[in-house]
C-alpha cells in the first residue's frame, strides 16, 4: 500500500506540459475551434484585402446604389464559367426614377488575376493585381454600390484592415499600461498599491462615451488619417487599461501567496528570477485570455466612434466609416447591402468571445 506506485488518474498524461494540456482541453471546445479558423480567415482577408477586392476604395461610377450583381454560369444553355451581364441605366421620362436594366445579350466574363486599380500592398509594395474582375465597361458589384457608385464588396474587404488592426495597436498599449501599472501595484503593494488603486478608480469613474466624444472632437480636422487613426487607438487604450491592471494586480497578489513562490525565495532566487521563472509563465495563459476579450472591445470602440463621425473619416474606410452610410432607416430598407459591415462586426466580435471562452476554460488545466 505504498503511495509511490499509486497510478495517477490518467496514466498517459503524466508528462504532459501545461501547454499540451491546454491544447487538448481547448480542442474539445468546438465553438472556439470554429472561431479560431474564422478569425484566421478574417485576418487573411485583411492581409490580402486589396488583392481580393476587384476594385479600389475610391472608384466612383455612375452606378449609384446598384444592387448586388448576379453571377451566371450558363449562356444560352451552355456552360461558360462565371460571368455577369452588362447593365444600363435608364431614367423614367416621367418620374426621373433611375432603373438598372440588365442587358442579357451582352455577357462579360469574370477574369482571374486581372490588372485594375493600383494599390500599395502592406503600404509600400506597389501593385495593381486583383484576384478577379471584369472588363471596364461591365460592373461586378457582389455587395452592390454606395451613393457614389463605389463597389461595397471591395470597400468592405479593405475596411477589415483598419478595423482589425486598430484593435491590435490599442490592445498593445492597453497591455503595456495594464501590466506595468497593475504589476507595480501588486508587486510592491503598500503605498504604491494604494495610490495606483485610487488613480485606477478615478479613471474608471470617467464616463466612457462623453470622454471619447470630447477627445474625438478635439482631433483637428486637418490631421492626416494616419494621425487620427493613431490618436484613436491611444484614446481607446487610455481608458481600457484599468480593467486589466486590476486583474493583473489581484492575480499577482494571489500568486505571491502561493507556496511555490515562497519556496523559490527560500531557495534564494532573486526577485527577477521569480518574476521570469514563476510569475510570467503563470501569467502567460491568463494574458492570452485577456487579449481575446480586449481586442473585440477595441474593434467595437473604433466602430462606435467612427459611426458617430468622431473617429476615422472618409476617404479612410473602416467598418465604422462604412456604417455611417447606413445611418438612416430609408437607406437600410432600400439598400440593405450597406448593412453588411455590421454583420462582419457581429461575427468578428462573437468569434473573439467564443475564442475567449474556450481559452478561459483551457487556461487553467489543473482546475477540475
Amino acid at each position, binding site marked *: *500500500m*505504498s*503511495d*509511490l506506485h*499509486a497510478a*495517477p488518474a490518467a496514466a498517459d*498524461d*503524466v*508528462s*504532459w*506540459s*501545461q501547454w499540451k494540456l491546454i491544447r487538448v482541453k481547448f480542442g474539445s471546445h468546438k465553438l472556439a475551434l470554429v472561431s479560431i479558423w474564422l478569425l484566421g480567415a478574417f485576418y487573411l482577408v485583411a492581409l490580402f484585402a486589396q488583392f481580393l477586392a476587384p476594385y479600389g476604395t475610391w472608384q466612383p461610377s455612375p452606378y449609384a446604389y446598384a444592387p448586388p450583381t448576379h453571377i451566371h454560369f450558363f449562356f444560352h444553355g451552355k456552360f461558360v464559367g462565371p460571368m455577369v451581364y452588362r447593365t444600363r441605366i435608364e431614367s423614367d421620362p416621367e418620374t426621373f426614377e433611375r432603373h438598372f436594366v440588365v442587358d442579357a445579350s451582352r455577357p462579360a466574363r469574370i477574369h482571374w488575376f486581372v490588372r485594375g486599380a493600383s494599390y500599395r500592398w502592406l503600404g509600400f509594395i506597389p501593385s495593381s493585381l486583383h484576384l478577379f474582375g471584369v472588363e471596364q465597361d461591365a460592373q461586378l458589384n457582389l455587395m452592390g454600390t454606395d451613393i457614389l457608385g463605389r463597389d461595397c464588396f471591395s470597400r468592405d474587404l479593405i475596411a477589415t484592415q483598419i478595423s482589425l488592426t486598430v484593435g491590435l495597436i490599442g490592445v498593445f498599449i492597453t497591455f503595456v499600461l495594464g501590466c506595468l501599472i497593475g504589476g507595480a501595484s501588486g508587486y510592491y503593494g503598500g503605498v504604491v498599491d*494604494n495610490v495606483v488603486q*485610487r488613480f485606477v478608480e478615478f479613471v474608471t469613474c470617467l464616463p466612457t462615451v462623453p470622454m471619447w466624444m470630447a477627445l474625438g472632437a478635439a482631433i483637428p480636422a486637418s490631421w492626416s488619417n494616419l494621425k487620427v487613426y493613431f490618436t484613436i487607438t491611444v484614446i481607446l487604450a487610455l481608458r481600457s487599461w484599468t480593467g486589466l491592471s486590476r486583474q493583473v494586480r489581484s492575480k499577482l497578489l494571489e500568486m505571491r501567496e*502561493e*507556496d*511555490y513562490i*515562497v*519556496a*523559490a*525565495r*527560500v*531557495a*534564494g*532566487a532573486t526577485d527577477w*528570477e521569480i518574476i521570469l*521563472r*514563476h510569475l510570467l*509563465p*503563470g501569467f502567460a495563459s491568463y494574458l492570452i485570455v485577456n487579449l481575446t476579450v480586449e481586442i473585440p472591445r477595441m474593434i467595437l470602440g473604433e466602430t462606435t466612434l467612427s459611426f458617430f463621425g468622431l473617429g476615422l473619416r472618409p476617404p479612410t474606410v473602416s467598418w465604422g466609416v462604412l456604417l455611417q452610410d447606413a445611418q438612416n432607416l430609408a437607406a437600410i430598407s432600400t439598400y440593405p447591402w450597406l448593412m453588411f459591415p455590421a454583420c462582419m462586426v457581429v461575427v468578428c466580435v462573437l468569434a473573439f468571445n467564443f475564442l475567449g471562452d474556450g481559452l478561459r476554460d483551457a487556461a487553467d488545466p*489543473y482546475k477540475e
Partner: protein
Amino acid sequence: MTEQRNLLTVRDLSKSYRLGGGFFDAREGTVRAVDRVSFSVERGRTFGLVGESGSGKTTIGRMIVRVVEPDQGAILFAGAASQTIDLAALTARQMRPLRRRMQMIFQDPLSSLDPRMTVARIIGEPLRAVHGVAPGDLRDRVAEVTELVGLRREHLDRYPHAFSGGQRQRIGIARALVTGPELVVADEAVSALDVSVQAQVLNLMRDLQQKLGVTYLFIAHDLGVVRYLCDTVAVLYRGRIAEIAEKRDLYRTPRHPYTESLIAAVPPPEPEDGPAPQPREPAALDQAPDHEAPAAGCPYRARCPYRQEICAHQEPALRAIAPGHSVACHFDLQLKGI
C-alpha cells in the same frame, strides 16, 4: 548546553501584523503573531513546534529562513566554521550565500510546487540559486536526491499534477535536501496527507535524518505527529511559548493546561514505532477578541479550567521548573493536583 551543540538559537523573536492594512481602513491595532519567542535547536535532532491554527508557527518558521522579516529578536545560526551568525541582522544580499544551508518543506504539497515546472526543475531550483554549479553536476545531484526520497529517475520529466499527494511531498522533501542543508523547517509537512501516507512520509524524514544528520524544525498543529519524530517540543499559544520540554517529559508530566488539553486530544499513546493518527485541527475559540486583549494577564485564562485570581492580572513568565523543562504558568504544581 553550549552554543556548539545548538545549530539554531532563537532569542526574543517577535512579529506583529497590522490589522486591516488599507489606507482608509478604520480598524486599528496590530496582531502579535509571534511574541518574544526563544528556544534552541540541537544539531542533528528534531525540534517540534506545536500549536493550534493561528498560533504563529508558520510565522516563526518563515522568519528563521528569512522570508518574513522579524520585528525584533535574534536568530543565531551556528556556522560549520563554528562561528555564529545572527540571521536577523543580515540583509537579503548577505543572506543569499546562507540559503543553501537552510531549507523548508511546505504544508500543501501541490501549492508548493510550480505546476508549470518539471520535477527536475523544481528539485534543482535551490541548486540553481547557488552560483557555480555546473549543469552536469546539477543533473546528477537532482537524480541522486530524487532516488534518496524514494522517487524514480523517470519521474523527473513529469509535472506535479501527475503525482499523488505523498509523492508530491517527496518532491518537496527532495527540493529541501538538494543543497545538503543543515536545517530543514518542515511546516506541517504531513498535515495535508492521508493518515497512511503520513506514516510513510514521517518514516522517510526520520530515515533521511539518520542518513544525512539534518536538523529539523518540525511544525505541527497536534501532538500526535510530533510524538513520533521530535526530541524536544515547544507548545505555542497565541504567539507565545506555553511550555517547552523534552518529548518524554512533556507527554508524561505536562505542566501547562494547554499542553494537557492537546495531549487529551491525541488518541491513547501507541508504541513508539508508529505515529498516531492525527485529530482534526482544534478550532481556535474566540480568537479575535483574545488577540486584541490587553497585555495584562495570562493569554490562556479564558479557556483555562484551572484559572485563579492572579491569572487575570499578571502574565506568567516562562520559567524553568526542571532541567530542560519550562512552562509559562503561575502554578508549577502537577496540574491534576490543583
